[in-house]
């Protein structure tokens, strides 16, 4: 197992390096610059600004500096927001996204997985049809429809919950609901699929023939295997959900990481783009590794190799 993890870790590092290089050169090749502004900047001033941020150097040299800085844990300054470093921005906004994301994901799992199990066990009854139709709607309704809808109903009409901001516990409810409904729907469908596959296995028939009680079959024999699809999805879902959802953060004015992804790209804030991309990629790599480990632990047919 240690060998497996070490190998995957090295693979992950290579992936990160490749992503870093690709992002860097794509950004460098994009037209526009972080310093272009609506009011023209005299060329000699532009040159000063560029020199300050190291843009006067050839692109390969910039890549090398940027890479070595990143390896030593320093993402550099934001090229657009004065006296803020990329590390500051991440340190400030990541905890917000992490909080919102983990609460949403927890809620999604708590709703999605039991629903999926029940739907699979009671397949082709109303316990299957109703939740599955609702979940299809949950997947199809994008967050930018669901969010304003919830804000409208609970914020403007019922006046129960705040519509935007991030100040106290009650501010988490609407955005978390928006995010978790979507993921819950996914988890429900994945769990139902996984459980159905398990319930149709030969060993289940054997167990039933031997008179094993149904709940033992579901609980003991099928659940582990049935959760595999959901767990596979959990890795990227976790990375995505905790690194911030741009749409939900924008709708509810939440000071998380997601907003920065888009702001960085629109502002051409090169250092911030790189920093965020690396962070996101690293999260995905780690989460996938964890998901793989969980996979092997749950599925006796898989081995570390």
């Amino acid at each position, binding site marked *: 197992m240690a060998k497996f993890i070490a190998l995957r870790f090295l693979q992950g590092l290579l992936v990160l390096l490749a992503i870093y290089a690709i992002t860097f050169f794509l950004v460098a090749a994009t*037209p526009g610059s972080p310093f272009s*502004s609506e009011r023209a900047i005299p060329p000699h001033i532009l040159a000063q600004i560029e020199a300050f941020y190291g843009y006067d150097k050839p692109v390969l040299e910039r890549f090398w500096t940027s890479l070595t800085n990143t390896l030593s844990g320093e993402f550099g300054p934001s090229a657009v*927001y004065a006296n803020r470093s990329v590390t500051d921005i991440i340190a400030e906004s990541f905890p917000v996204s992490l909080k919102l994301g983990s609460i949403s994901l927890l809620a999604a799992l708590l709703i999605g997985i*039991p629903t999926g199990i029940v739907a699979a066990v009671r397949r082709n009854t109303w316990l299957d049809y109703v939740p599955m139709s609702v979940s299809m709607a949950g997947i199809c309704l994008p967050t930018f429809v669901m969010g304003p809808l919830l804000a409208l109903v609970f914020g*403007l009409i019922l006046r129960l919950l*705040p519509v935007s901001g991030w100040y106290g516990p009650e501010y988490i409810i609407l955005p978390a609901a928006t995010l978790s409904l979507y993921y819950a729907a996914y988890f429900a469908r994945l769990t139902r699929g996984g459980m159905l596959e398990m319930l149709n296995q030969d060993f289940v028939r054997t167990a039933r023939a031997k008179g094993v009680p149904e709940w033992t079959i579901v609980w003991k024999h099928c659940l582990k295997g049935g959760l595999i699809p959901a767990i596979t999805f959990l890795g990227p879902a976790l990375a995505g959900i905790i690194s911030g959802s741009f749409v939900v953060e924008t709708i509810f004015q939440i000071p998380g990481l997601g907003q920065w992804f888009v702001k960085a790209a629109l502002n051409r804030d090169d250092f911030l783009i790189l920093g965020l991309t690396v962070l996101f990629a690293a999260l995905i790599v780690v989460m996938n590794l964890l998901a793989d480990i969980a996979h092997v632990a749950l599925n006796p047919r898989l081995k570390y190799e």
Partner: protein
Amino acid sequence: MRVGTLATAIKAFAAQFSSSFLSVAIVAICFTVVACGTREREVDIAAKNGILLMGNGAEPKALDPHLVTGVPENRIISSLMEGLISYHPSNDLEPEPGVAERWEHNADFTVWRFQLRENARWSNGEPVTAGDFVYSWQRILSPALGAEYASMLYVIRNAEAFHQGQINDFSQVGVRALNPRTLEVTLAGPTPYFLNMLKHYSFFPVNPRVVERFGGMTNRQNSWSTAENYVGNGPFRLTQWTTNQVIKVAKSPTYWDAARVRLNEIHFFPIENVRTEETAFLAGRLHLTSTVSPDRIPTFQRENAEQLKIDPYLGLYFFRINVTREPFNDPRVREALNLAIDRRMLVERVTQGGQAPASGIVPPGLQNYPASQQVQFNLQRARQLLAEAGFPGGRGFPRKEILINTSEAHRKIAEAIQAMWRENLGIDVGIYNQEWKVYLDSQSQLNYDLSRAGWIADYAYPMTFLEIFTTGNGNNDTGWSNAQYDALIQQARTASTEPQRMQLMQQAERLLLTELPVIPIYWYTRIYLKDPRVQGWNPTLLDNRPYKYVSISSG
């Protein structure tokens, strides 16, 4: 039997998760009940406490007056800092004493002397001195700082040479502290509107001691302007800056005119999404929005007539024409395109925000400068000119494109004009959008045919609109160059009397509107939602709101 076992299975599950599930549910219910019971709207609570809640549009890029260029930054900085001249509560053309309590100038407006008030204080208690202004202006003019707005100070003698690195000795630049309370400024030429320029944040002072302590004069990453270190001299002081969430300022006890300041606090909310901002306003969380979405204006006019505000704004929406490309190098083609736009219909049907159809370049409202009426809607003449240029009925006109930056509002306007040209002239143009930074690049490299643009006045004087079209001006971006125009602008700058200057600028504008390297479309308005309890929020040409005159009634 199977139902029974299922129930057991669910029970087992419930047991597994019950503790966490239950707690989440209870917490959720608690919040709902609490929220229900005490839901007094934020705007009401804030009004009682004298706190103004403002949508700010965007997170400020910085709060250092020498490093910013945008409106969201200006809104906050103008509460924290004050220049020699301050904003007048209702008339942007009037100079209002700021740090300077008196001033005088020589006969031809080239030498100005400002008497600083004795009780002008920084928020750390230090007096604001003439030396602070000298330091500040040296700072923004230092090439190493790379201040985007440094060219505003080029009115000062030798400021341009210093900024360009031609002289290194700042004492040759026309600003001197005669004593701690007297500042003398020598200008490059006669500038009667200098007082109007002084209201701009590029002329604001910074505290030299603080700037030196946190990184030095020319360090762009100087941390003096963070929430912890900020020292200002304005009516408010910075108390909290939470990125993407809120910036709070509170009444400053050290401000010289603190007795006049009525608000206790202002909270600026950097809400970028217009819909979110509108929702926040309607849900009682904001007293003011920074803007409204254009397509909701009719709805608000119907349902929130008391809250919807439409103020004139000193800005021009226009199309740039790349005159270096065929067939736009022919002035007749440019004139034909210009004559074939029905601007009244455009503002009434498309933009719908009370904008005025532009009949010239410089918007109305400026002293002694009536707006030009030269721009007309005249189809017959347009078609005739197009035919003379070799494209009768639009035949043979090459396919050209309108460049816009990505935005629904700009697309709608471009589509309306596209339709007008197709219908009126038989010309088919395309529309394509680029992201903001790419669009700026394309425009400055003349990599476009036609491009939408906007220009908001930096100060209340016609020159702010006219000078950008001189040869070599970094904001010209049309490839147009006209020696006569350049000469007129130069003469206007150095004209000895005000009527002469006005006349020269009008001549220049006439020439510009004959040559038409740009097609004026409409003059801006500022559209926003405002809680009726907010008092003293007067419409001003440049949208400067001196917060010290603003108050909020609790009723």
